[in-house]
């Protein structure tokens, strides 16, 4: 799932402080594509992609957004109980997801639909838990993509432990842990930093700072940019323009390479924006201004790459039209699949609590069967 010709260099020694230089209030962030779609260079991170690869990234983002939008619609129609939209975070997710290798392992939080896409997880499989038919509808080991984790921050430790195991195996795979700006406050994330540093585990911490944790702005979590957190634990942190898919790809690839060559953990803060509500249950008008969103629409990750593709003549109308058709087909498939997604059998409650069985589960299952049978009897 890697865009292999990505020519991201390993960060030089100096790159530990990449982005640490402040420019007029805001910390510098790694950017390779301006909001207007201009390619720019960065001293520590570079990338060189073929037109096909660039179109591929564009396609990934467009399909992900379409899928996401369709899921939101399905929630409104009552087909899903809830949906957590990634709207606005497509570049952060596709850029980082495409930086991973097949043998890398990904630990997502609950919003990484774009990363799941890159890993080859069928998007319809993501919908089961939001529909309420399961708590995680895919086999994590099939795509090395762990289940969504809802308890904020927990998965950072799982990723670190997994990475410690990778190192023990002498493998050159890397691990990436996703979490949000809000999650950065959880003790588990801090402990993950400590373990990763102490054991020099091959794990990349990928923080999507979308500037909101439900209704709380990032200032409720930190008073300095989050990427700086890493330094105090003894590994580098860098802030990347999270709406710039090229920069995210380059930085993540560099961080993963660094990890796989034994240089240990790294923290990436992808500075982005949650364009929609926290979830379909949320009402952001209660806590933030429309203006903020409008400001960020100008930095839209998809428009930005489209502008680049168009300006450089890297994609033609036929490409965009075909992609539109593909999007529609994806949306339709998602719709059809969800609508026919069966409810689990009642007895599923008694499955999988244990791998080796448990006497009480057996007893309760038997009681339940008898209880249900009693209705059948009554009806007879």
């Amino acid at each position: 799932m890697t865009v292999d010709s990505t020519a991201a260099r390993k960060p030089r020694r100096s790159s530990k402080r990449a982005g640490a230089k402040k420019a007029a209030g805001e910390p510098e962030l790694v950017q390779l594509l301006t909001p207007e779609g201009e390619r720019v260079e960065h001293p520590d991170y570079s990338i060189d992609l073929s037109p096909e690869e660039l179109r591929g990234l564009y396609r990934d983002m467009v399909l992900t957004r379409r899928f996401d939008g369709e899921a939101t619609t399905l929630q409104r129609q009552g087909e899903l109980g809830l949906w957590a939209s990634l709207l606005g975070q497509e570049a952060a997710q596709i850029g980082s997801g495409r930086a991973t290798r097949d043998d890398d392992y990904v630990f997502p939080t609950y919003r990484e639909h774009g990363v799941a896409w890159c890993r080859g997880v069928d998007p319809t499989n993501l919908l089961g838990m939001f529909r309420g038919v399961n708590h995680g509808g895919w086999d994590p080991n099939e795509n090395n993509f762990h289940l969504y984790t809802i308890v904020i921050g927990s998965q950072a430790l799982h990723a670190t432990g997994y990475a410690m195991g990778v190192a023990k195996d002498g493998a050159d795979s890397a691990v990436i842990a996703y979490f949000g700006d809000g999650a950065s406050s959880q003790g588990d994330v801090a402990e993950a930093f400590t373990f990763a540093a102490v054991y020099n585990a091959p794990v990349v911490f990928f923080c999507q700072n979308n500037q909101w944790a439900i209704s709380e702005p990032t200032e409720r979590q930190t008073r300095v940019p989050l990427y700086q957190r890493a330094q105090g634990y003894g590994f580098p942190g860098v802030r990347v323009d999270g709406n710039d898919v090229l920069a995210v790809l380059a930085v993540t690839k560099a961080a993963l390479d660094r990890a796989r060559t034994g240089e240990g953990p790294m923290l990436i803060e992808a500075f982005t924006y949650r364009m929609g509500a926290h979830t379909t249950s949320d009402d952001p008008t209660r806590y933030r201004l429309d203006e903020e969103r409008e400001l960020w629409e100008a930095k839209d990750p998809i428009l930005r790459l489209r502008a680049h593709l168009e300006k450089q003549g890297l994609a033609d109308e036929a490409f965009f039209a075909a992609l539109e058709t593909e999007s529609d087909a994806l949306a339709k498939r998602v719709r059809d699949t969800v609508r026919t997604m069966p409810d689990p059998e009642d007895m599923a409650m008694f499955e999988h609590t244990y791998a080796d069985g448990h006497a009480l589960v057996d007893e309760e299952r038997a009681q339940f069967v008898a209880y249900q049978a009693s209705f059948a009897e009554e009806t007879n």
Partner: protein
Amino acid sequence: MSTQKLTIAKAINASLRTALETDPKVLVMGEDVGKLGGVFRVTDGLQKDFGEERVIDTPLAESGIVGTAIGMALRGYRPVVEIQFDGFVFPAYDQIVTQLAKMHARALGKIKLPVVIRIPYGGAIGAVEHHSESPEALFAHVAGLKVISPSNAADAYWMMQQAIQSDDPVIYFEPKRRYHDRGDVDTTAIPGPLHAARTVREGTDLTLVAYGPMVKTCLEAAAAAAEEGKSLEVLDLRSVSPIDFDAIQRSVEKTRRLVVVHEAPVFFGSGAEIAARITERCFYHLEAPVLRVGGYHAPYPPSRLEDEYLPGLDRVLDSVDRALAY
């Protein structure tokens, strides 16, 4: 008298408002409790009226929330802490169990910990994982905590008042699936004792004991049973630590049969403690073993299965029939 018809959510809101108005030491804190008013709007409008110093949006860290609330209590404040959902209390469990619960005893009574922890709990709202659990037994087993759960708006209001006034830490479980149930709240009434159970329906054949969201279910069960000529008494326990065993005993000495209903898993749940103690107290009165209706020994299931997992009317009545069959 000043009676209003309020939902449970609004009653808690009104109670917090009263507390913030009358005691400058009362604080409200938690994730998203400010501008958003909490994900269930229970703290709606409070930050607007009492400011960010009294109604505090916290970092996303439950141990930090409870740990700093303890510190503020030591400074003389009375924090009312919100845990956003039942399944997210566990990062704070260490602070609750090893610090909040034990500090008063550790200090031989020299310091007090008037901290209220609000936890919306229970299922039947069609939510994703971790949003539908009933972990009350995990707090009741721990000495130093008081554990309560209202089932109606008036109790929601008054039990919150009393919880805040208590000098002990109180875990206040809010029956989230009943947030929108309405009831009369008389904000000038003189409330009864915080930990006393209440008979919400009199009966002679069997006692149903429940608290929080299951009280309504039990009342429905009693109504259904009445149609079949069975007279069920329903007790709203209101408090899970302490438990008003005297009230249960009185009822069981009359009805001679007891069924305990809760959403939490049966294994090691409240029903076990009630069954054990009431059997001891009423050994010669009981015509049937105390039966328990609750969740299964399984993680709370995906929401499409929750109707099967949760005790509903049918399962309560099934146990009633089984108890009456003895």
